[in-house]
């Protein structure tokens, strides 16, 4: 709280105008970042808010391959809806996953931004034909969910090799780091028609689990 004593009328008017004319809400995610206890106590609210902010960021930032490709409220038909993308991201906030408050590298929102943009740019570089293409499930809910699980596996692999993931200046890995992993994945086409011809379809949470095993197996061979 701030108090002013003996201000003249013009200063009062100036402060009144500044407060009421320029005031903006701060990003609610900042509140949660600044108050870790609140983050833990209101984890569901926090996750919803953070995931929504991440999806908005991916859909709006100029470097993101997702820019204008996510079905936000009021947008035209898109390959993945905002709510599906949020559902895929929310799993990363569960205990033991990448975006929990205990994670040493990806607790902060800015790190999550950087990581997701760099990772999906690496995916897009290797899958430009399949990217945002309805004939492929790469950018649909099942594909995004599996790709995010693969990302966690890649980060675990990098950590096991003592690769520096981040420091005080920000993310130390980038699309080039992900390139070799995604190159291994490209033998898998994410083609709906090809999988259907083999009698395979990835539907619902069971389909996501099956697809996740498949992509991790293609990249890591286990």
């Amino acid at each position, binding site marked *: 709280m701030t108090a002013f004593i003996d201000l003249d009328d013009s200063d009062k008017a100036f402060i009144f105008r500044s407060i009421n004319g320029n005031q903006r809400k701060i990003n609610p995610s900042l509140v949660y970042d600044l108050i870790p206890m609140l983050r833990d106590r209101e984890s569901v609210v926090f996750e919803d808010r953070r995931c929504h902010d991440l999806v908005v960021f991916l859909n709006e930032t*100029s470097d993101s*391959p997702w*820019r*204008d*490709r996510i079905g936000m409220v*009021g*947008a*035209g038909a*898109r390959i993945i809806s905002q709510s599906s993308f949020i559902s895929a991201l929310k799993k990363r906030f569960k205990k033991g996953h990448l975006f929990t408050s205990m994670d040493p590298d990806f607790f902060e929102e800015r790190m999550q931004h950087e990581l997701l943009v760099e990772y999906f*740019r690496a995916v*897009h*570089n290797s899958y*430009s*034909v*399949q*990217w*945002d*293409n*309805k*004939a*492929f499930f790469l950018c649909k809910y099942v594909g995004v969910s599996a790709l995010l699980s693969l990302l966690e596996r890649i980060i675990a692999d990098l950590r096991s090799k003592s690769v520096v993931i981040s420091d005080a200046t920000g993310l130390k890995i980038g699309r080039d780091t992900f390139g070799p992993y995604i190159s291994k994945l490209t033998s898998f*086409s994410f083609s709906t028609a090809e999988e259907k011809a083999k009698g395979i379809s990835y539907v619902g949470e069971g389909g996501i689990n099956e697809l996740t095993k498949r992509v991790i197996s293609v990249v890591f061979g286990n």
Partner: protein
Amino acid sequence: MVTVITSPAATVESMLEHSWLADDQKVAFAASPFVPSATSVSDYLSPWLISNGYNSGSFRSELYIQDAQITACLMNQALEFLERALCNTIAQYILAQNGLETWARVTNYYASYFSVHSLLCLQGRTITSLRLNNAVQVQIVPVDLRTHVFGITKRHLGKNPHHQTPWVRFYKIYDRYAVPHQANELVAREAYTAEPADEAIERNALNYTPFKGFGEIRNIARHGEFSGLFTSYVSALETRSTLPDFLTDLQGFASDSDHKYFARALLKLALAGEILLFIRAVNVAIEAEWVAMRRRWQDFLATVFPNPSTCYLLKFVPLIGSGLA
């Protein structure tokens, strides 16, 4: 050299409305052997197709080919379409200033139409006529733009491949494209148009429907009303000196019932210019041709409009493709 591809990564059908990202365009055009030329995709492909036994009946199913030279031809087409669009914009200005509303609207349509063709070429696609045993209308569809793999087909062209299909394709593709300025969304997003071919429909009404066009000669009051409104718009534009300022004004004009298509044509020209800006940065031959084109345009404008204070185009045209900073 043209290579036939038997197992493409995707089918033409799945790529008809594919919207390539800026990164894809950069990779494709960076690797294209661009040389300024008047050789169109049709000029380049037709002799090869004839010599390899293809005829006008060959494209009921798709032919997949790979050749970076096609990407280079598409860039030459994109630049040529942009220049056509610019010429029509200049003609529109002269006609509208003089109250010749009907033909001002028709030339404005062509400015918009050629911009759309330019933007489609920048996405690696074109609708063209191959000269084989008979002329055959086909579309060239980029199946993998980065590696210059294209499908040729005469399917999916629609009932009006000249003045409807390009518009429909344009909106499907650019609806998801990350445009560089909010004003560009007005000409790229399907949500901002009730009918993708609305500009073609208006042009057809003016040109071909009895008593729809040339009202200015029958109603002299309309002649004055139209030129007066147009003059007020361009006088606002004449005070602008940066591209973002122009785009902000045009964003406002684009919802005006009388002059929305005028603003939309200029917004498309600006969009094509901004896309070319980042492509030019990765290919020195394209950049050199752009510099030569700009000089040509400015010489032409200086000849047509010798008094620098009289035409907004003298300020707007040099800003096309100059960046938003």
